[in-house]
C-alpha cells in the first residue's frame, strides 16, 4: 500500500482529522501537488495577517472611526482570510474533486488561461490592486486629503515615512495614489459594464435583423467612431459639470461602438447556423433567440473586449482627470495627481511620476489578462 492511497483511506474513515493543513491555508493544496494554488492561498493569508499585524491600531480604530471605508476594509480583511481558509479546508476535508473527462467550454478556456503564465501574473496583479484599494485605510497611516504642517511636510522626497514623497500641500502621495486607485478602477469598471452591455445589445440586434435596422445602427456607429475618442468625450463633458457621475455616464455611452462592431460581425455568421434556424423553426420570439441563443455564443470576444477596454478606459479617464474634466480635486484620481505635480515637475518629480507608474502597472495587468483571455477563448487559435 503506497502513501497516497493510505492517506485516502485515512480520510475515508477518519474524516476531519485536525492536521496542520486544517489551520494553515494553502497547505492542503501544496500537499496535493497544486503548487500555484497553494502558494497563492498561503501568500494571501500571510499578506492579510501582515496587514493586521503592522496596522493593528488602525484596524482597531475601525470601531471608533465610524467611517464606511474602514468597515469596507475590515470586511475585506476578514472576508479574504475566511475565504482563503475556507477554500483550504474544503481541499483538506472535502471529498476529492471528481474530474470529469468531458469538460465544459468555460472549463477548457480556464485551463488554457491557467497555462499562460504571464496572463495569470496579470490576474494576480489585478486582484492585488483591487484588494489594495479596498484595504486602503489600513495600508497607510495618512489621510488622502489631510493637509498637515505645509512648511514641514511640503515636497518631501520619497523615504520610508513617505514612500512616494509628499506633494505641494504636504499630502502623502502614496496615500493619494492608493485612494486614487479606487476612483480610477471603479470608474473603469462601471463604464466598461455600461458600454459592453450597450455594445452587445446594439451589435446583436443589428447583426440579427440586418437590413434597414443594421444600416441605421451601423451608420450611427460610423459617425461616433469618426470622432477621436477623447475629443468626443471632452466635447460632451464640457457641456455638463464635470463629476464622477458625468464621467461614468459619458464614458459608458460613448465607448460602446467598438464592442457593437465586434458583436455584429460574430452575429452575422452565427445567425446562419443551424441552431438558430432550429430556434426560429420552433417559433421562438426574436428577443429570446438573440439573448438566449446568440448572445451566449459571442460572450468570448465580448469578455476579451471588456478586459482590454478596461485598460483603455483607465488610460482615458486618467487623461480626462489630467485635463481637469473628471474627478475634481481634492478627491484624488491618478490623472489629477499627475496634473497637480506638473507645476513643480522639476523640484518634486515624484508627485507626477508615481501615479503614472501605477497607471502603467494597472493597464499592463489588464492587457495581459485580455491577451490571455483572447488566446484562451478563441478556439481558432487552439490546436
Amino acid at each position: 500500500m503506497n502513501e497516497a492511497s493510505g492517506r485516502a483511506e485515512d480520510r475515508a474513515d477518519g474524516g476531519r482529522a485536525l492536521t496542520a493543513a486544517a489551520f494553515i491555508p494553502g497547505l492542503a493544496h501544496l500537499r496535493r501537488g497544486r503548487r500555484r494554488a497553494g502558494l497563492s492561498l498561503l501568500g494571501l493569508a500571510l499578506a492579510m495577517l501582515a496587514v493586521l499585524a503592522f496596522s493593528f491600531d488602525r484596524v482597531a480604530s475601525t470601531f471608533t472611526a465610524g467611517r464606511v471605508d474602514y468597515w469596507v476594509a475590515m470586511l475585506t480583511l476578514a472576508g479574504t482570510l475566511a475565504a482563503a481558509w475556507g477554500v483550504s479546508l474544503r481541499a483538506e476535508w472535502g471529498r476529492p474533486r471528481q474530474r470529469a473527462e468531458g469538460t465544459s467550454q468555460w472549463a477548457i478556456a480556464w485551463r488554457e488561461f491557467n497555462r499562460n503564465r504571464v496572463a495569470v501574473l496579470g490576474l494576480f496583479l489585478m486582484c492585488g490592486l483591487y484588494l489594495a484599494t479596498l484595504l486602503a485605510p489600513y495600508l497607510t497611516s495618512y489621510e488622502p486629503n489631510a493637509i498637515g504642517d505645509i512648511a514641514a511636510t511640503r515636497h518631501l522626497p520619497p523615504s520610508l515615512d513617505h514612500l512616494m514623497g509628499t506633494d505641494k500641500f504636504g499630502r502623502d502621495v502614496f496615500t493619494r495614489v492608493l485612494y486614487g486607485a479606487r476612483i480610477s478602477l471603479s470608474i473603469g469598471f462601471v463604464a466598461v459594464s455600461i458600454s459592453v452591455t450597450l455594445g452587445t445589445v446594439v451589435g446583436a440586434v443589428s447583426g440579427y435583423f440586418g437590413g434597414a435596422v443594421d444600416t441605421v445602427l451601423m451608420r450611427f456607429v460610423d459617425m461616433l467612431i469618426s470622432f477621436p475618442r477623447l475629443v468626443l468625450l471632452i466635447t460632451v463633458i464640457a457641456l455638463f459639470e464635470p463629476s464622477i457621475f458625468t464621467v461614468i455616464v459619458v464614458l459608458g455611452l460613448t465607448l460602446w461602438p467598438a464592442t457593437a462592431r465586434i458583436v455584429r460581425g460574430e452575429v452575422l455568421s452565427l445567425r446562419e447556423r443551424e441552431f438558430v434556424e432550429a430556434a426560429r423553426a420552433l417559433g421562438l420570439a426574436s428577443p429570446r433567440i438573440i439573448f438566449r441563443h446568440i448572445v451566449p455564443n459571442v460572450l468570448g470576444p465580448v469578455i476579451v473586449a471588456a478586459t482590454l477596454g478596461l485598460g483603455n478606459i483607465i488610460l482615458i479617464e486618467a487623461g480626462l482627470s489630467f485635463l481637469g474634466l473628471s474627478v475634481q480635486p481634492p478627491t484624488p484620481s491618478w490623472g489629477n495627481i499627475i496634473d497637480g505635480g506638473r507645476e513643480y515637475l522639476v523640484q518634486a518629480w515624484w508627485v507626477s511620476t508615481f501615479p503614472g507608474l501605477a497607471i502603467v502597472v494597472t493597464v499592463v495587468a489588464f492587457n495581459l489578462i485580455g491577451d490571455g483571455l483572447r488566446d484562451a477563448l478563441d478556439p481558432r487559435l487552439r490546436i
Partner: protein
Amino acid sequence: MTAYIVRRLIQAIPLLLGIVTLVFVIVHAAPGDPTAMYVHPSVSPEVIEQMRENWGLDRPIHIQYLRWLRSFLTGDLGVSLTQNRPIVSILAERIPNTLILSGTSLVLIFAIGIAIGIVQAVRQHSTLDHTLTLSALFIYSMPSFWLGLMLILVFAHKAHLLDWWPAALTFPASGMTSVDYDLMSGWGKLGDRLHHLVLPSIALGVASAASVARYMRSSMLEVIRQDYIRTARAKGLPERTVILKHALKNALLPIITLLGLYLPFLFSGAVLVEYVFAWPGMGRTIVDAISQRDYPLVMATSFIFAVMVVIANLIADILYAVVDPRIRYE
C-alpha cells in the same frame, strides 16, 4: 478604380452630414442655452432676449437645425466667444500645427514599428524578440501625457546636469519655436522646429509604434511561411533580399489599413500631448476653449477633428485599393 474612389467619396457625404447633426444634437441636449453664461444681475433680461434673437435661439428647432447645416456647408463655423474673431481663421492657424505634429508622429510610428516588427519576425523566439515584446507591452500601456511629462523631466530639465550629456540631446520643454526664432537663418529655423518636434512626437507616437510592431511581427511571420519565400531561398538569394524585397512588400499590405485606424487614436493623444507641450494646435485649442467655456469653438474644433478622421480613412481605403491588386473594387 476611379469609379471606386468616386463611390467612396459619395459615401462620405452622408457620414459628414451625420456628424454635423450629431454635433447639433450634443449642443442642444446640454442643459441651458449659450446665453446662460451671460445671466447676471447687472445684465437686463431684455439684453439676454436680444442675444437669443441675434443667435436665432428663439426660432423653432428645425429652423435652427437648417441654419446650422447651412452655416457648416458654407464653411462658416461661427465666431469664437472669447477671441471675438471667426473660428475659421483661428482653426486655419491651428490645423497645420496639429498636422505637423501628427504627421511626424505617424512617420515615426510606421518607420520604427515596421523596423522592429521585421527584426522580431526574423529572430522569432530569440531573447531579443521576447525583450522587445515585453517592452512593447509596457510602452503601449503608458498614458501619452505622462510619458510626455517624463520626457520633459529627463530630456529638458535633468539630463543636461550630467557633465558628459551632449548638448544636442537636450530638448526644449514646450512650444514650437525658440524665443530667438525670428533671428535665425533658414536652416537654423528648420533645425529649431525639428528640435522642438522631437519630444512631443515621441510622446505621441511611441505607444502606437509598439502596436504597429506587434501587427508587423505577426504579418511578417505569416508571409515568411509562404511557399514563394521558400522558392526565393531555394534559388539561393541572400536572406536579406528575401526578407526585404520578397517578404516585406506583402507583409506591409495589412499594415496600410492600420493607418486609418490609428489616426483617431493619434488625434486623441494629440489633445493631451499638445496640452503638455504647450503646442499651439487644435488639441490645445479645444482644451483652452473648454476651460473658457467657448462652446462654439469647442463644437467647431471637434467637428473638424471628425472631418479629418473621415478624410484619413478615405485616403487609407484608396491607398489600400491602389497597392493591393488582388482586390477588385467593382
